[in-house]
């Protein structure tokens, strides 16, 4: 589903990602590891189509509508409520039975009670849960997750692991993590960036 050959990215003089070769087959679960500054986020942004490689070849066989991207930032408006944010994305992603899907995700991620609060009042952990709802809203085939456990409490991490366990059976996942050992039982491959 994703194939990279010598993929590298520079920002001016700074090399953000050293050339890397990797392949992620449909149904695979590739964990990207590496120290801070090794280029994990850059690689994920390249795969999501938010950046273009400065050298090498990158082939991603998924349309924008088939791709779910969880970034460092939750990518939600702080002046809107959780429902309003998800409704906007639901419209743009043409999610059928949008209200039911939003309700189901908010319930599943423990945000139903806070659904009508502006997200500016959310804790970092709640924002991460909302970001996961946003990522899964359109039921994407390819999931690109940048540090999905970021800011989650123990219950949130457990919930995330259950989700990943479900998702890996039917979806393709590319996940960057500082703590890859928690993902080892799901992973079909590991890509270590230096």
């Amino acid at each position, binding site marked *: 589903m994703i194939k990279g050959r010598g993929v590298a990215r520079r920002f001016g003089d700074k090399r953000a990602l050293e050339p890397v070769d990797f392949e992620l087959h449909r149904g695979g679960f590739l964990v990207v590891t590496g120290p801070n500054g090794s280029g994990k986020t850059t690689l994920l942004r390249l795969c999501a189509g938010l950046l273009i490689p400065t050298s090498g070849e990158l082939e991603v066989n998924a349309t924008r509508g088939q791709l779910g991207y969880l970034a460092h930032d939750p990518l939600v408006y702080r*002046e809107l409520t959780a429902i*309003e944010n998800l409704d906007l994305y639901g419209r743009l*992603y043409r999610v059928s039975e949008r209200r039911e899907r939003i309700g189901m995700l908010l319930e599943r991620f423990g945000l139903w009670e806070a659904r009508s609060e502006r997200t500016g009042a959310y804790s970092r952990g709640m924002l991460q849960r909302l970001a996961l709802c946003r990522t899964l809203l359109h039921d994407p085939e390819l999931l690109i997750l940048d540090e999905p456990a970021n800011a989650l409490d123990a219950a949130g991490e457990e919930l995330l692991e259950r989700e990943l366990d479900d998702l890996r059976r039917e979806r393709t996942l590319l996940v960057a993590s500082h703590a890859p050992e928690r993902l080892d039982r799901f992973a079909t491959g590991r890509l270590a960036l230096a």
Partner: protein
Amino acid sequence: MRQYLADAGALARKDLLLEWRARDTLPAMLLFVISVLVVFHFALPQNASERASLGLLWVAILFTALLGLGRAFVAEREQGVLDGLVLAPSDRSTIWVGKVISTLAFLVASELVALPAFALFFTSIDASTIAGVALADVGICAVGTVVAAMAAAGRARELLLPLLFLPLAIPIVVGGVGASLSASSGKYLGFLALYDAIFVLVAWAAFEYVVTE
């Protein structure tokens, strides 16, 4: 086409809702345009010509629009939301259309206060001036939104926006002042309409390349 308009409408509604809740753009634009008119009222001599005062009206409109454009992508930039919008399968130019609609709404709302205030402080406004302002608003918002998106991605964004926008807005001022003062105002209104047609098309087509690499 229906889906395209629905997406643009949803994005514009979102911007209007954000402004309704945050109230950080429109009040600033209103306060600015009134302040500028008051300052000009005292700065211009009593016997200042109509020509000078109408010129100042266009300066006030342009700088008020600049204030609104400077805030057009603040929520997207500060909260990183632009990535989320760009990744959605909807046509990326709908982001531009949505922003143009909301910026236009703020600008028109400012002018609904500014034009009567101008008439009160300076001189009466005729139909050709109002038509000129309406046509200029479209051009200002179309071009300004693309430039604002470019500036939002840069580091010196406060500097970049006026530096990129003001030279592109010179024809709008030429057309606007001409429509307000010239005996053959139709010619200038036609010029503004032509500017709008060309730059709306260019801005619409260019936006995707501005928000992606």
